[in-house]
């Protein structure tokens, strides 16, 4: 991997509610290099969106980062003052949200909105003509027909797919080092989704943007990402390059996720479902957080939290792969080859 652009180390996040603190994220580690696309998957409530808010320091008032570092290049984003952070957001760290209609202001034309973003971050250094040229150029890049005319249109005059293209154009306009895309295609049809995914991947590779792609859809992740990180109950439970993760998933949770995808191969047989639900933050089990839903759970899993192991670059948080954990009959788990 090339030099990493974003690096997160030992990040813990809690949400304060009354006198109680709920651990939303714990021990998060991640790295994304220039031009690399990292996928983050997991069920709802596993902390995907908390993580992206933590990276941008856009936490709700009751959210608090209690430990860890978020490095952007060599700078720890958790150490810098808010005024500095504000300059970074949008310029160096951009974000694309799920629903473009709520992130675009309905009362201004998109030309105005694109201009304002450039003015806010460019100081007074950019001329009107430069700003205009850059806006047109960005709309062209995202495949918008007649960009010069469309700059005068309002958000409601665009279709869903076009709006998401505008969001991508705005996000990438200032050439950010990092792009966080939170379920950017969930609201779109598959045909549009395919267009947007290939556009996004192409632009990120071209511009060398480190991209964090959050999705609950493993199919989408397989199409766009270079590496994948699986989250569960606020922890990273597995992280590997795309092919290893899909060919040889190690964590029982990842395996269950992959097996529960409906497809024709499973016709006539019951889909594997993961019993139970993601535990709520107020009632997390003490050991491994997946223990209540895991088919291989043992006493050691209930007692202690597994370490985040590194097996030749493939990282997993499970006692079965840790010879020092005291997990019995680990062969049952390790030999449970995926695809059987």
């Amino acid at each position, binding site marked *: 991997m090339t030099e990493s652009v974003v690096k997160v180390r030992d990040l813990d996040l809690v949400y304060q509610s009354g006198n109680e603190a709920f651990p939303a994220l714990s021990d998060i580690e991640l790295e994304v290099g220039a031009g690399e696309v990292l996928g983050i998957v997991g*069920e*709802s409530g596993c902390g995907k969106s908390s993580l992206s808010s933590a990276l941008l320091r856009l936490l709700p008032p009751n959210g608090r980062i209690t430990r860890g570092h978020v490095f952007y290049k060599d700078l720890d984003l958790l150490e810098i003052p808010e005024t500095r952070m504000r300059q970074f957001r949008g310029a160096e760290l951009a974000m694309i949200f799920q629903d473009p209609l709520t992130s675009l202001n309905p009362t201004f034309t998109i030309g105005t909105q694109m201009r304002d973003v450039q003015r806010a971050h460019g100081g007074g250094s950019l001329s009107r003509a430069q700003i205009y040229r850059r806006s047109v150029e960005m709309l062209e890049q995202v495949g918008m027909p007649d960009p010069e005319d469309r700059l005068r249109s309002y958000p409601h005059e665009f*279709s869903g*797919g*076009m709006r998401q293209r505008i969001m991508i154009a705005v996000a990438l306009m200032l050439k950010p080092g990092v792009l966080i895309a939170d379920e950017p295609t969930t609201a779109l*049809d*598959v*045909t*549009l*989704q*395919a*267009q947007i*995914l*290939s556009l996004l991947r192409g632009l990120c590779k071209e511009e060398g943007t480190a991209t964090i792609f959050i999705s*609950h*859809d*493993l*199919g*989408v*992740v*397989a*199409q*766009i990402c270079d590496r994948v990180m699986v989250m569960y109950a606020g922890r990273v439970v597995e992280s590997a390059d*795309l*092919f290893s993760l*899909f060919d040889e998933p190690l964590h029982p949770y990842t395996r*269950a*996720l*992959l097996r*529960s*995808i*409906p*497809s*024709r191969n*499973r*016709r006539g047989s*019951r*889909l*594997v*479902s*993961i019993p139970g*639900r993601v535990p709520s933050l107020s009632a997390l089990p003490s050991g491994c957080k997946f223990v209540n839903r895991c088919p291989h759970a043992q006493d050691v899993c209930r007692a202690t939290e597994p370490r985040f192991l590194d097996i030749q670059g493939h990282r997993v948080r499970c006692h079965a792969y840790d010879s020092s954990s005291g997990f019995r009959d680990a062969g049952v788990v390790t030999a449970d080859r995926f695809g059987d």
Partner: protein
Amino acid sequence: MSMEGKKAPRAEARDLCVHFGQRAAGFAKFTGRRAPVVHAVDDVSLEIGPREVVGLVGESGSGKTTLGKALLRLVPVTSGQVLFDGDDVSHSRGDQIRQFRRQAQMIFQDPHASLSPRLTISQLLEEPYRIHRIPEEDRTSVAHLLETVELSSELANKYPHELSGGQARRVGIARALALHPKLLIADEPTAGLDVSAIGNILNLMNDIKDEYGISYLIITHDIGVVEYIADRLAVMYLGNVVEVGPTERVLDDAAHPYTRALLSTVPKPDPRRKDGHAPSLLPGEIPSPKNPPSGCRFHTRCAYSDNGLCRTVMPKQEWVDESHAVYCHRWRTVRG
């Protein structure tokens, strides 16, 4: 259309059209100006056999939901027929329509929006009985309904906002099942759910089908879902069914260029598809049903369209084999 075993279809649409905005409404009554007519469903024929699962796929705006609603007479039929067990119900009223609605139910797309926030789960589940004035002794108990959809009976006194998406979806299914229908139309039953919850809902739908002998029309944009559960697959584009046939045949040997494009863009959990196997991206977006293209409606985005026939003549149904129909002038070329 041929049916296995030549049984009468449970539900059938014959040359069904649903157009919106034909009558001037609101302010237009005074100005006399007419909004353009929206051709939501145009000339669609589709059969759903007893105990058959038909999947209906297509982009948003293709008329899938409107077709589903028209089959239940939830939107007015402009022309053509809706048949249920061989009876024409397209213009039934009063008791007749109430009888029909007992037997055909819908599972709505957004479970939270389709459950009244002011009623408890048990009230919601009893509502169909109240509406249809079913005597107490013929009702299925709330506890039993909840059990059927694998929900704990503790939920009976809760309100919809206290449920998760998957639970609300199950309540929607339980409500549809309350009257023991013969046909269930499920609009995006898995949209917005996590993978593990999708698996649970599909397993449940399969169980119910076997237990109650229900036919399904499953409207979805998730090809994985239809691959898994549907016996036959119908593909819609801009108000028309463009291809219909046994699921495997349509998936493996699609004859319509739109079906092919749609299938190739479906994201698969297989990283190897990313390289080499680039999806044949459809250019542009679905045109407006207010002003659908002439001839074949897909010709504006079709790689195979010629300038003659495709632009002027709407394709008729042609048979690829005895069970697989396609509406395309050039399907022989498409299949190569």
